[in-house]
């Protein structure tokens, strides 16, 4: 899978997404639920904008001094007997993990949910090492996706959002021999029992890292399920994969970001399990005896020193997905990247290039809701515009081909001059008035249904494919006409 989750084009993925009504409803429900939780937890905290300023200052400071903190962190890990590998790309990271697993002759591996391990595509590599290799994703959602033949995630925080309880029951029945009902409590108990048995036999644990603590060499993990804590307790070997930007000076800064993360991701004051751990001490009896940290670049340095550097401030809360009107309509799979939504639309082209992810910056209304909600103040919608500018102006990668560009040039000219804009508006109303809206407009299958245009041509097609386009009011009811009249009468 890697960074890319699909071989289809963006247009093909959109068509698939439009058909998936359950996923659309699930995303809408998730966004609405999370809105309530997130906003009330932020309101309860108070001074939210000041908290955002603090979080932003920590992230910007760390990025500014990244070489210093990476050096300090790796020195501290090594001082405690751990091992640090700096990987330039996914292949180097995979090769290192492979080397460790082979050295340990490990056959039973447990994994805690981690975006970066998916980004480097570690699961297929591990599975390919041996016929009897047992790799277990221990986050419930990731476990469901794994049991469902490694289905792809659709959300950063809720990866199995697109699956309902009946589908999960069927998957568990087919693959795990589950005989119970579709109650999430019973399904979760089945998962708990299955996973607990495998945990106790595990030889290697693989985790991500929410934050790495430079001055102690510890890693910081947040989960609600506790699966990361078992992963860092039971196996004798632990391998941590982390993006190079996920570092903070000390536990004091991590504490602030953990609070921001919990409130922004799931509306909690603190995630159920927040853990700071590293290699076990000599007199301890559980925890990793061999502790490895893989620090990954994999395209992140493309953002350093550029106008996109602030995307590395991201703490993976997923709040931007949960407010995005585009994500609401098309869901996670349509993005074709393991990083969906606004964050993915900015980050994916940085990591994987414009050739593959150049469509994503256009999958935005530029409403700014993502920027508004981001707890570390990443100017997401401005970065989306910046991507478009780079592609159009610098790289001359005209997004939708010459015809659309011609149309957009015409729109640009029309909207750029008041007189032409007024003329264009009048023409639009005149044009629409020619359509048969005087007739009954509630007939199924006609051009107009319930007072809306259902199938429009050219530029408006992208809109009417997924939304209704309200019929324009009669000319005399136009706002501009009304305003002119009332202003004159004032």
């Amino acid at each position, binding site marked *: 899978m890697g960074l890319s989750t699909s071989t289809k084009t963006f247009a093909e993925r959109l068509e698939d997404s439009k058909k998936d009504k359950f996923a659309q409803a699930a995303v809408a*429900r998730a966004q609405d639920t999370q809105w309530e939780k997130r906003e009330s937890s932020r309101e309860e905290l108070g001074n939210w904008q000041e908290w955002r*300023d*603090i979080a932003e*200052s920590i992230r910007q400071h760390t990025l500014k*001094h*990244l*070489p210093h903190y*990476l*050096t300090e962190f*790796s*020195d501290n890990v*090594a*001082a405690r*007997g751990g*091992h*640090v*590998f*700096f990987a*330039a790309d996914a292949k180097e990271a995979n090769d290192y993990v492979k080397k460790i697993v082979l050295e340990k002759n490990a056959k039973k591996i447990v994994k805690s949910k981690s975006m970066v391990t998916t980004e480097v595509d570690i699961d297929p590599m591990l599975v390919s090492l041996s016929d009897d290799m047992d790799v277990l994703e221990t*986050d*419930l*959602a990731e476990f469901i996706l794994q049991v469902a033949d490694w289905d792809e995630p659709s959300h950063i925080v*809720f990866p199995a959002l697109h699956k309902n309880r009946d589908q999960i029951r069927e998957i568990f029945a087919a693959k795990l021999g589950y005989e119970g009902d579709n109650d*999430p*409590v019973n399904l*979760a108990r089945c998962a708990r029992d299955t*996973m607990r048995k495998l945990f*106790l036999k595990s030889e290697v644990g693989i985790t991500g890292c929410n934050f790495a603590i430079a001055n*102690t060499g510890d890693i910081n993990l947040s989960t*609600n*399920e*506790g*699966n990361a*804590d*078992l992963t860092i307790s039971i196996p004798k070997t632990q391998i941590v994969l982390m993006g*190079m930007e996920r570092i903070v000076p000390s*536990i*004091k800064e991590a*504490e602030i970001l953990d*609070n921001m993360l919990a409130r922004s991701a799931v509306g909690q004051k*603190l995630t*159920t*399990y927040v*853990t*700071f*751990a*590293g*290699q076990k*001490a*000599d*007199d*301890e*009896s*559980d*925890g990793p005896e061999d502790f490895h940290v893989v*620090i990954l*670049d994999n395209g992140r*340095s493309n953002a350093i*020193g*550029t106008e996109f550097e602030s995307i590395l401030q991201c703490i993976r809360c997923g709040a931007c997905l949960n407010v995005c009107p585009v994500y609401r309509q098309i869901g996670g799979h349509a993005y074709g990247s393991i990083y969906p939504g606004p964050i993915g639309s900015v980050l994916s082209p940085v990591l994987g290039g414009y050739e593959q992810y150049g469509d994503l910056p256009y999958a935005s209304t530029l409403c700014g809701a993502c920027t508004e909600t981001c707890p570390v103040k990443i100017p997401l919608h401005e970065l989306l515009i910046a991507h478009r500018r780079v592609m159009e102006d610098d790289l001359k990668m005209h997004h939708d081909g010459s015809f659309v560009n011609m149309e957009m040039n015409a729109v640009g000219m029309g909207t750029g001059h008041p007189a032409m804009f007024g003329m264009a508006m009048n023409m639009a109303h005149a044009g629409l008035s020619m359509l048969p809206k005087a007739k009954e407009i509630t007939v199924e299958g006609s051009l107009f249904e319930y007072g809306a245009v259902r199938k429009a041509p050219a530029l408006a097609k992208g809109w009417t494919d997924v939304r209704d386009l309200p019929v324009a009011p009669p000319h005399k009811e136009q706002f501009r006409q009304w305003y002119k009249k009332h202003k004159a009468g004032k």
Partner: protein
Amino acid sequence: MTGTIENREKFLATLLEKRGGVELPFEAYQPISNLPETHLAHLTTDELLAIARDQAARVSANLIETTASKMNEVIAGLIEKSGGEQVMIPTTDEFDHFGIQVESNQLVQWKIGAEYRDENIMAAQNSNVAVAVAKFFLAESATIAVESEAGQGRSLHFLPTHYISVIPLSRMVARSTQAASWFEENKKPGSTLHFISGPSNSGDIEMQLVVGLHGPLEINYVIVKDL
């Protein structure tokens, strides 16, 4: 024994190159606000406890308030309510220090020493209840802070089915800021910090909250008011 660091120079050279070859002079992070330290810090113990009570219910933890003289009776009652069976406790001076006595005919203790790895993990797995003392209790989020070390391994907090955290009220602080600040100065080298807010849970199936996925199915906070 010192570990290894591979590829660091090359990796950092790439970052330097992206900055145009100019290394920025290092300055330590200076907080731009004291908001984390002051948030809730002005509240009295009673006010913080009221917040903690409300929050404990939100994180599906049972909060019981008692006194030192009744503490052991409360603990015994919780063990019985949990179904008895095997009970695990850490090896720590704090049990003696606070007078905690856990009565059980199937009592096991976490053994100090790396050679007891498998024995300790399996004892934790086979325990129905674990009893431990919290280092801090964070009122804002109803969170216990626990420091795993030789006498109480990481598994002790996660594998047993029920968990009883004994919390001297004197260890209650406003929020994670105060605990983090203390650990910044006093954390034992190599120890592990767990901030635990109620039982393990998940909303991954149609966003319906399910408690007890990996860790304990139940967590009890026993707040001892005069300790």
